[in-house]
Protein backbone atom coordinates (compact mmCIF):
# COMPACT_ATOMS: atom_id res chain seq x y z
CA UNK A 1 0.00 0.00 0.00
CA UNK A 2 1.17 3.57 -0.62
CA UNK A 3 3.23 5.16 2.16
CA UNK A 4 2.47 8.79 2.88
CA UNK A 5 3.31 8.75 6.58
CA UNK A 6 6.10 7.41 8.77
CA UNK A 7 5.36 4.23 10.67
CA UNK A 8 7.36 2.38 13.33
CA UNK A 9 9.18 -0.73 12.08
CA UNK A 10 7.11 -2.97 14.34
CA UNK A 11 3.82 -1.48 13.16
CA UNK A 12 2.12 -4.78 12.34
CA UNK A 13 3.67 -6.80 15.20
CA UNK A 14 2.51 -4.12 17.60
CA UNK A 15 -1.06 -4.19 16.30
CA UNK A 16 -1.05 -7.98 16.29
CA UNK A 17 0.02 -8.03 19.95
CA UNK A 18 -2.55 -5.40 20.87
CA UNK A 19 -5.43 -7.24 19.26
CA UNK A 20 -4.40 -10.56 20.81
CA UNK A 21 -4.21 -8.85 24.19
CA UNK A 22 -7.63 -7.31 23.71
CA UNK A 23 -9.18 -10.61 22.68
CA UNK A 24 -7.48 -12.46 25.56
CA UNK A 25 -8.72 -9.94 28.11
CA UNK A 26 -12.26 -9.95 26.74
CA UNK A 27 -12.22 -13.74 27.09
CA UNK A 28 -10.78 -13.55 30.60
CA UNK A 29 -13.46 -11.03 31.62
CA UNK A 30 -16.25 -13.21 30.28
CA UNK A 31 -17.32 -10.86 27.50
CA UNK A 32 -16.64 -13.37 24.72
CA UNK A 33 -15.39 -16.97 24.61
CA UNK A 34 -12.17 -18.43 23.20
CA UNK A 35 -14.13 -19.54 20.13
CA UNK A 36 -16.28 -16.46 19.46
CA UNK A 37 -13.96 -14.68 17.04
CA UNK A 38 -13.20 -17.86 15.11
CA UNK A 39 -16.89 -18.58 14.76
CA UNK A 40 -17.55 -15.11 13.40
CA UNK A 41 -14.71 -15.49 10.92
CA UNK A 42 -15.92 -18.94 9.93
CA UNK A 43 -19.37 -17.53 9.19
CA UNK A 44 -17.87 -15.11 6.68
CA UNK A 45 -15.40 -17.59 5.26
CA UNK A 46 -17.90 -20.37 4.60
CA UNK A 47 -21.39 -18.90 4.29
CA UNK A 48 -21.53 -15.16 3.71
CA UNK A 49 -19.20 -14.83 0.76
CA UNK A 50 -19.40 -13.18 -2.67
CA UNK A 51 -20.52 -16.56 -4.01
CA UNK A 52 -24.03 -15.65 -2.85
CA UNK A 53 -24.01 -12.50 -4.96
CA UNK A 54 -22.58 -14.39 -7.93
CA UNK A 55 -25.45 -16.89 -7.77
CA UNK A 56 -27.99 -14.07 -7.58
CA UNK A 57 -26.48 -12.34 -10.61
CA UNK A 58 -26.32 -15.58 -12.60
CA UNK A 59 -29.98 -16.30 -11.91
CA UNK A 60 -30.91 -12.78 -12.98
CA UNK A 61 -29.03 -13.32 -16.24
CA UNK A 62 -30.95 -16.47 -17.17
CA UNK A 63 -34.39 -15.70 -15.69
CA UNK A 64 -36.02 -12.39 -16.72
CA UNK A 65 -38.87 -12.77 -14.22
CA UNK A 66 -36.33 -13.20 -11.41
CA UNK A 67 -34.38 -10.19 -12.68
CA UNK A 68 -37.53 -8.08 -12.59
CA UNK A 69 -38.36 -9.19 -9.05
CA UNK A 70 -34.75 -8.58 -8.02
CA UNK A 71 -35.01 -4.99 -9.24
CA UNK A 72 -38.38 -4.33 -7.59
CA UNK A 73 -38.23 -6.40 -4.40
CA UNK A 74 -34.68 -7.58 -3.85
CA UNK A 75 -35.24 -9.46 -0.57
CA UNK A 76 -38.15 -11.42 -2.06
CA UNK A 77 -36.02 -12.43 -5.03
CA UNK A 78 -33.08 -13.46 -2.86
CA UNK A 79 -35.41 -15.53 -0.67
CA UNK A 80 -36.31 -17.64 -3.70
CA UNK A 81 -32.77 -18.96 -4.04
CA UNK A 82 -31.17 -21.77 -2.09
CA UNK A 83 -28.66 -19.62 -0.20
CA UNK A 84 -27.35 -19.85 3.38
CA UNK A 85 -29.68 -18.92 6.23
CA UNK A 86 -29.12 -15.29 7.12
CA UNK A 87 -29.38 -13.46 3.80
CA UNK A 88 -31.56 -10.88 5.59
CA UNK A 89 -29.30 -10.92 8.65
CA UNK A 90 -26.64 -8.44 9.74
CA UNK A 91 -25.99 -5.86 7.01
CA UNK A 92 -28.50 -7.67 4.83
CA UNK A 93 -31.65 -6.39 6.51
CA UNK A 94 -32.41 -4.00 3.66
CA UNK A 95 -30.60 -5.11 0.54
CA UNK A 96 -31.38 -3.49 -2.80
CA UNK A 97 -30.06 -4.46 -6.21
CA UNK A 98 -29.31 -1.84 -8.86
CA UNK A 99 -29.22 -3.21 -12.37
CA UNK A 100 -26.79 -2.28 -15.13
CA UNK A 101 -28.49 -1.86 -18.51
CA UNK A 102 -27.36 -0.68 -21.91
CA UNK A 103 -26.45 2.98 -21.32
CA UNK A 104 -26.65 2.72 -17.51
CA UNK A 105 -23.77 1.81 -15.19
CA UNK A 106 -24.20 1.73 -11.42
CA UNK A 107 -21.51 2.38 -8.80
CA UNK A 108 -21.97 1.85 -5.06
CA UNK A 109 -19.94 3.90 -2.58
CA UNK A 110 -20.09 4.85 1.11
CA UNK A 111 -18.57 8.25 1.76
CA UNK A 112 -19.25 8.25 5.52
CA UNK A 113 -17.92 4.80 6.40
CA UNK A 114 -17.96 1.46 4.57
CA UNK A 115 -21.57 0.19 4.45
CA UNK A 116 -21.62 -3.08 2.53
CA UNK A 117 -24.21 -5.84 1.88
CA UNK A 118 -22.42 -8.58 3.84
CA UNK A 119 -24.70 -11.54 3.06
CA UNK A 120 -24.54 -10.90 -0.69
CA UNK A 121 -20.94 -9.76 -1.14
CA UNK A 122 -19.15 -10.89 2.01
CA UNK A 123 -16.80 -8.35 3.56
CA UNK A 124 -15.65 -5.24 1.71
CA UNK A 125 -12.33 -5.26 -0.10
CA UNK A 126 -9.76 -2.70 1.02
CA UNK A 127 -10.16 -0.36 -1.92
CA UNK A 128 -13.84 0.17 -1.05
CA UNK A 129 -12.84 1.32 2.45
CA UNK A 130 -10.03 3.53 1.14
CA UNK A 131 -10.72 7.23 1.91
CA UNK A 132 -9.26 8.19 -1.47
CA UNK A 133 -11.75 6.02 -3.35
CA UNK A 134 -14.65 7.21 -1.21
CA UNK A 135 -13.72 10.87 -1.67
CA UNK A 136 -13.03 10.74 -5.39
CA UNK A 137 -15.82 8.42 -6.52
CA UNK A 138 -18.43 10.91 -5.30
CA UNK A 139 -17.03 13.80 -7.33
CA UNK A 140 -15.37 12.15 -10.32
CA UNK A 141 -16.88 8.70 -10.81
CA UNK A 142 -16.02 8.53 -14.52
CA UNK A 143 -12.37 9.36 -13.91
CA UNK A 144 -12.12 6.81 -11.11
CA UNK A 145 -13.87 4.14 -13.17
CA UNK A 146 -11.51 4.78 -16.10
CA UNK A 147 -8.51 4.44 -13.77
CA UNK A 148 -9.87 1.15 -12.46
CA UNK A 149 -10.43 -0.23 -15.96
CA UNK A 150 -14.02 0.72 -16.78
CA UNK A 151 -13.92 3.44 -19.41
CA UNK A 152 -17.43 4.66 -20.18
CA UNK A 153 -18.47 6.90 -23.03
CA UNK A 154 -20.04 10.26 -22.27
CA UNK A 155 -23.53 9.08 -23.15
CA UNK A 156 -23.54 6.24 -20.61
CA UNK A 157 -25.29 7.32 -17.44
CA UNK A 158 -23.28 6.60 -14.30
CA UNK A 159 -25.53 6.23 -11.28
CA UNK A 160 -23.60 6.66 -8.03
CA UNK A 161 -25.24 5.29 -4.88
CA UNK A 162 -23.90 6.69 -1.59
CA UNK A 163 -24.98 4.29 1.17
CA UNK A 164 -25.61 6.62 4.09
CA UNK A 165 -28.93 5.13 5.29
CA UNK A 166 -30.25 1.64 5.93
CA UNK A 167 -30.16 0.31 2.36
CA UNK A 168 -27.27 -1.85 1.28
CA UNK A 169 -26.98 -1.70 -2.50
CA UNK A 170 -25.21 -4.05 -4.86
CA UNK A 171 -24.85 -3.97 -8.63
CA UNK A 172 -26.11 -6.57 -11.08
CA UNK A 173 -23.54 -6.24 -13.87
CA UNK A 174 -24.38 -6.78 -17.53
CA UNK A 175 -24.13 -10.34 -18.87
CA UNK A 176 -21.17 -10.60 -21.21
CA UNK A 177 -21.51 -11.63 -24.83
CA UNK A 178 -20.39 -15.11 -25.75
CA UNK A 179 -22.12 -16.81 -22.83
CA UNK A 180 -25.25 -17.95 -24.63
CA UNK A 181 -26.38 -21.34 -23.36
CA UNK A 182 -24.10 -21.26 -20.32
CA UNK A 183 -25.35 -22.77 -17.07
CA UNK A 184 -25.92 -20.63 -13.99
CA UNK A 185 -22.90 -22.22 -12.38
CA UNK A 186 -20.70 -21.33 -15.33
CA UNK A 187 -22.05 -17.80 -15.38
CA UNK A 188 -21.57 -17.33 -11.64
CA UNK A 189 -17.92 -18.22 -12.15
CA UNK A 190 -17.45 -15.14 -14.33
CA UNK A 191 -18.84 -12.64 -11.82
CA UNK A 192 -16.44 -10.75 -9.55
CA UNK A 193 -16.96 -8.85 -6.31
CA UNK A 194 -15.70 -5.71 -8.04
CA UNK A 195 -18.33 -6.04 -10.76
CA UNK A 196 -21.06 -6.25 -8.11
CA UNK A 197 -19.93 -2.92 -6.62
CA UNK A 198 -19.59 -1.31 -10.02
CA UNK A 199 -15.84 -0.84 -10.47
CA UNK A 200 -15.54 -3.63 -13.01
CA UNK A 201 -17.52 -5.08 -15.86
CA UNK A 202 -17.78 -8.81 -16.47
CA UNK A 203 -15.66 -9.34 -19.59
CA UNK A 204 -16.63 -11.83 -22.29
CA UNK A 205 -14.99 -15.21 -21.76
CA UNK A 206 -11.92 -15.95 -23.85
CA UNK A 207 -12.78 -17.94 -26.93
CA UNK A 208 -11.44 -21.45 -26.44
CA UNK A 209 -9.16 -23.06 -29.00
CA UNK A 210 -11.13 -24.98 -31.59
CA UNK A 211 -14.29 -22.93 -31.20
CA UNK A 212 -13.24 -20.04 -33.41
CA UNK A 213 -16.00 -19.00 -35.74
Amino acid at each position, binding site marked *: MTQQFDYPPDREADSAAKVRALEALL*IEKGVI*TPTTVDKVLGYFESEMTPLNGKKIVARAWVDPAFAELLANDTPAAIAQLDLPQGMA*GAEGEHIAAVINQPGVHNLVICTLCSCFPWPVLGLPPYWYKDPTFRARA*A*REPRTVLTELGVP*LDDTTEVRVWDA*SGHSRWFVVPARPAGTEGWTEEQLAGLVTTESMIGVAIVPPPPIEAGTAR
Partner: protein
Amino acid sequence: MKLQHALGGLEGLGPVDFEKNVFVEDWEKRIFGIHVALMGLSSSLRDSLPGYDPQAAGTTFRSTWTWADLRKGAEAMNPFDYFKFRYYEKWLGGISAYCVEQGYLSADELAQAAGQLHEGTGTPPSSGGAGIDDQVIRYLREGDSPRRGPATPRFPVGDTVLVADPPHGAHTRLPGYLRGHRGVIQSVAEGNYAYFCSTGGDGLGDPVPVYVVRFEPAEIWGDTAEAGPSPLYAELYEPYLLPATD
Protein backbone atom coordinates in the same frame (compact mmCIF):
# COMPACT_ATOMS: atom_id res chain seq x y z
CA MET B 1 -16.77 20.58 10.39
CA LYS B 2 -14.91 17.30 10.45
CA LEU B 3 -13.15 16.00 7.38
CA GLN B 4 -14.66 12.57 8.01
CA HIS B 5 -18.15 14.07 7.70
CA ALA B 6 -17.39 15.61 4.33
CA LEU B 7 -14.99 13.15 2.76
CA GLY B 8 -17.05 12.85 -0.41
CA GLY B 9 -15.63 15.21 -3.02
CA LEU B 10 -12.33 15.97 -1.29
CA GLU B 11 -9.91 17.09 -3.99
CA GLY B 12 -6.19 16.73 -4.51
CA LEU B 13 -5.93 13.04 -3.72
CA GLY B 14 -3.87 10.58 -5.71
CA PRO B 15 -4.78 7.32 -7.39
CA VAL B 16 -7.01 4.76 -5.70
CA ASP B 17 -5.15 1.88 -4.08
CA PHE B 18 -6.99 -0.99 -5.78
CA GLU B 19 -6.22 -3.53 -3.04
CA LYS B 20 -8.81 -6.27 -3.45
CA ASN B 21 -8.10 -8.21 -0.27
CA VAL B 22 -10.50 -7.82 2.65
CA PHE B 23 -7.66 -8.13 5.16
CA VAL B 24 -4.04 -7.28 4.43
CA GLU B 25 -2.66 -8.56 7.77
CA ASP B 26 -3.82 -11.62 9.66
CA TRP B 27 -4.34 -9.67 12.88
CA GLU B 28 -7.02 -7.57 11.19
CA LYS B 29 -9.34 -10.57 11.19
CA ARG B 30 -9.28 -10.67 14.98
CA ILE B 31 -10.43 -7.08 15.47
CA PHE B 32 -13.14 -7.56 12.86
CA GLY B 33 -14.35 -10.60 14.79
CA ILE B 34 -14.26 -8.74 18.11
CA HIS B 35 -16.30 -5.88 16.63
CA VAL B 36 -18.96 -8.25 15.29
CA ALA B 37 -19.05 -10.13 18.59
CA LEU B 38 -19.62 -6.95 20.58
CA MET B 39 -22.37 -5.89 18.16
CA GLY B 40 -23.99 -9.28 18.63
CA LEU B 41 -23.79 -8.91 22.42
CA SER B 42 -24.81 -5.24 22.60
CA SER B 43 -27.36 -4.43 25.28
CA SER B 44 -29.19 -2.35 22.67
CA LEU B 45 -30.30 -5.62 21.02
CA ARG B 46 -32.89 -6.07 23.76
CA ASP B 47 -34.97 -3.54 21.81
CA SER B 48 -34.33 -5.22 18.45
CA LEU B 49 -37.06 -6.81 16.36
CA PRO B 50 -35.74 -10.39 16.85
CA GLY B 51 -35.89 -9.77 20.63
CA TYR B 52 -32.40 -10.91 21.55
CA ASP B 53 -31.39 -11.23 25.20
CA PRO B 54 -27.57 -11.01 25.19
CA GLN B 55 -27.31 -11.07 29.00
CA ALA B 56 -29.13 -14.41 29.13
CA ALA B 57 -26.47 -15.76 26.76
CA GLY B 58 -23.98 -15.48 29.61
CA THR B 59 -21.82 -12.57 28.55
CA THR B 60 -20.59 -10.03 31.07
CA PHE B 61 -20.99 -7.34 28.40
CA ARG B 62 -23.55 -4.78 29.56
CA SER B 63 -22.85 -1.93 27.15
CA THR B 64 -24.19 -0.76 23.85
CA TRP B 65 -21.84 -1.35 20.93
CA THR B 66 -23.26 -0.64 17.49
CA TRP B 67 -22.06 0.67 14.16
CA ALA B 68 -22.77 4.14 15.55
CA ASP B 69 -20.15 3.62 18.27
CA LEU B 70 -17.54 2.39 15.82
CA ARG B 71 -18.30 5.27 13.46
CA LYS B 72 -18.15 7.84 16.26
CA GLY B 73 -14.62 6.67 17.05
CA ALA B 74 -13.50 7.10 13.44
CA GLU B 75 -15.23 10.47 13.19
CA ALA B 76 -13.50 11.66 16.38
CA MET B 77 -10.03 11.02 14.97
CA ASN B 78 -7.58 13.70 13.95
CA PRO B 79 -8.11 13.89 10.17
CA PHE B 80 -4.42 13.29 9.46
CA ASP B 81 -4.59 10.13 11.56
CA TYR B 82 -7.73 9.15 9.71
CA PHE B 83 -5.67 9.03 6.54
CA LYS B 84 -2.55 7.70 8.25
CA PHE B 85 -4.01 4.58 9.76
CA ARG B 86 -5.43 1.65 7.83
CA TYR B 87 -9.06 0.72 8.21
CA TYR B 88 -8.65 -1.96 10.85
CA GLU B 89 -6.01 0.04 12.71
CA LYS B 90 -8.76 2.59 13.34
CA TRP B 91 -11.06 -0.19 14.53
CA LEU B 92 -8.41 -1.52 16.91
CA GLY B 93 -7.83 1.90 18.43
CA GLY B 94 -11.52 2.70 18.73
CA ILE B 95 -12.67 -0.63 20.16
CA SER B 96 -9.76 -0.84 22.62
CA ALA B 97 -10.43 2.68 23.89
CA TYR B 98 -14.12 1.90 24.26
CA CYS B 99 -13.51 -1.28 26.27
CA VAL B 100 -11.24 0.67 28.60
CA GLU B 101 -13.69 3.57 28.88
CA GLN B 102 -16.51 1.17 29.71
CA GLY B 103 -14.42 -0.49 32.41
CA TYR B 104 -14.07 -4.00 30.95
CA LEU B 105 -10.31 -3.73 31.15
CA SER B 106 -7.73 -1.13 32.06
CA ALA B 107 -5.20 0.50 29.80
CA ASP B 108 -2.46 -0.96 32.00
CA GLU B 109 -3.83 -4.48 31.68
CA LEU B 110 -4.02 -4.07 27.94
CA ALA B 111 -0.48 -2.73 27.67
CA GLN B 112 0.88 -5.45 29.94
CA ALA B 113 -0.90 -8.22 28.06
CA ALA B 114 0.23 -6.80 24.73
CA GLY B 115 3.80 -6.62 26.00
CA GLN B 116 3.74 -10.27 27.04
CA LEU B 117 2.24 -11.34 23.75
CA HIS B 118 4.73 -9.16 21.89
CA GLU B 119 7.52 -11.08 23.62
CA GLY B 120 5.90 -14.36 22.73
CA THR B 121 5.06 -15.29 26.32
CA GLY B 122 1.61 -15.49 27.80
CA THR B 123 -1.27 -17.39 26.28
CA PRO B 124 -4.92 -16.41 26.06
CA PRO B 125 -6.83 -17.97 28.93
CA SER B 126 -9.79 -20.23 28.31
CA SER B 127 -13.30 -19.90 29.70
CA GLY B 128 -16.82 -19.00 28.59
CA GLY B 129 -19.95 -20.72 27.41
CA ALA B 130 -21.52 -21.67 24.11
CA GLY B 131 -24.48 -19.36 24.70
CA ILE B 132 -22.33 -16.34 23.90
CA ASP B 133 -21.21 -17.72 20.55
CA ASP B 134 -24.76 -18.79 19.71
CA GLN B 135 -26.06 -15.29 20.40
CA VAL B 136 -23.42 -13.71 18.16
CA ILE B 137 -24.18 -16.08 15.28
CA ARG B 138 -27.90 -15.61 15.78
CA TYR B 139 -27.38 -11.86 15.52
CA LEU B 140 -25.53 -12.40 12.25
CA ARG B 141 -28.32 -14.56 10.84
CA GLU B 142 -31.28 -12.47 12.00
CA GLY B 143 -29.76 -8.99 11.99
CA ASP B 144 -30.97 -5.80 13.60
CA SER B 145 -33.29 -3.90 11.28
CA PRO B 146 -33.94 -0.31 12.36
CA ARG B 147 -37.34 -0.30 10.62
CA ARG B 148 -40.06 0.82 13.04
CA GLY B 149 -43.66 1.45 12.12
CA PRO B 150 -45.30 2.63 8.93
CA ALA B 151 -43.86 5.43 6.86
CA THR B 152 -45.08 8.95 7.61
CA PRO B 153 -43.39 10.84 4.79
CA ARG B 154 -43.56 14.59 4.52
CA PHE B 155 -42.29 14.63 0.92
CA PRO B 156 -43.70 12.71 -2.07
CA VAL B 157 -41.68 11.27 -4.94
CA GLY B 158 -40.74 14.05 -7.36
CA ASP B 159 -40.57 16.84 -4.79
CA THR B 160 -37.51 19.03 -4.86
CA VAL B 161 -35.87 19.22 -1.45
CA LEU B 162 -33.06 21.23 0.08
CA VAL B 163 -30.51 19.39 2.20
CA ALA B 164 -30.41 20.94 5.65
CA ASP B 165 -27.30 22.25 7.37
CA PRO B 166 -27.75 21.08 10.96
CA PRO B 167 -25.17 21.78 13.68
CA HIS B 168 -22.07 19.61 13.41
CA GLY B 169 -22.13 17.02 16.16
CA ALA B 170 -19.94 14.08 17.09
CA HIS B 171 -21.75 11.77 14.70
CA THR B 172 -23.87 12.18 11.60
CA ARG B 173 -25.27 10.21 8.69
CA LEU B 174 -25.50 13.28 6.48
CA PRO B 175 -22.77 13.29 3.83
CA GLY B 176 -21.28 16.76 4.22
CA TYR B 177 -20.92 17.45 0.51
CA LEU B 178 -24.71 17.44 0.16
CA ARG B 179 -25.39 20.18 2.73
CA GLY B 180 -27.23 23.09 1.18
CA HIS B 181 -27.83 21.37 -2.16
CA ARG B 182 -31.07 20.60 -3.93
CA GLY B 183 -32.18 17.17 -4.99
CA VAL B 184 -35.33 15.38 -6.07
CA ILE B 185 -37.07 12.66 -4.08
CA GLN B 186 -36.50 9.47 -6.06
CA SER B 187 -38.21 7.06 -3.69
CA VAL B 188 -39.73 6.94 -0.22
CA ALA B 189 -38.83 4.05 2.11
CA GLU B 190 -41.74 1.79 3.01
CA GLY B 191 -41.38 2.22 6.74
CA ASN B 192 -39.88 4.65 9.20
CA TYR B 193 -36.36 4.01 10.42
CA ALA B 194 -34.72 4.56 13.78
CA TYR B 195 -31.02 5.10 14.30
CA PHE B 196 -28.75 3.34 16.82
CA CYS B 197 -28.42 6.43 18.95
CA SER B 198 -29.51 10.03 19.15
CA THR B 199 -27.26 12.26 17.09
CA GLY B 200 -28.45 15.30 19.05
CA GLY B 201 -29.16 18.49 17.11
CA ASP B 202 -28.29 16.55 13.98
CA GLY B 203 -31.73 14.95 14.25
CA LEU B 204 -31.45 11.14 14.18
CA GLY B 205 -32.61 8.58 16.73
CA ASP B 206 -36.38 8.20 16.75
CA PRO B 207 -38.05 6.51 13.76
CA VAL B 208 -38.32 8.89 10.81
CA PRO B 209 -39.11 8.63 7.10
CA VAL B 210 -36.19 7.95 4.79
CA TYR B 211 -35.79 8.92 1.15
CA VAL B 212 -33.50 8.20 -1.73
CA VAL B 213 -32.72 11.65 -3.14
CA ARG B 214 -31.31 12.18 -6.61
CA PHE B 215 -28.73 14.91 -7.11
CA GLU B 216 -27.33 16.24 -10.37
CA PRO B 217 -23.54 16.55 -10.31
CA ALA B 218 -23.60 20.19 -11.50
CA GLU B 219 -25.82 21.04 -8.50
CA ILE B 220 -23.28 19.59 -6.10
CA TRP B 221 -19.96 20.36 -7.78
CA GLY B 222 -20.78 23.33 -10.01
CA ASP B 223 -18.51 23.94 -12.97
CA THR B 224 -16.07 21.26 -11.83
CA ALA B 225 -18.61 18.46 -12.30
CA GLU B 226 -17.61 15.79 -14.80
CA ALA B 227 -19.23 15.90 -18.23
CA GLY B 228 -21.89 13.32 -19.00
CA PRO B 229 -24.91 12.14 -17.06
CA SER B 230 -23.95 10.89 -13.60
CA PRO B 231 -26.73 11.37 -11.06
CA LEU B 232 -25.82 10.70 -7.44
CA TYR B 233 -28.32 8.99 -5.18
CA ALA B 234 -28.11 9.34 -1.42
CA GLU B 235 -30.38 7.80 1.17
CA LEU B 236 -31.28 10.58 3.58
CA TYR B 237 -33.28 10.69 6.80
CA GLU B 238 -36.13 13.19 6.84
CA PRO B 239 -34.55 15.51 9.47
CA TYR B 240 -31.85 16.21 6.88
CA LEU B 241 -34.34 17.53 4.32
CA LEU B 242 -36.22 20.82 3.97
CA PRO B 243 -38.81 21.90 1.41
CA ALA B 244 -37.15 23.73 -1.46
CA THR B 245 -38.82 27.11 -1.71
CA ASP B 246 -38.24 28.64 -5.09
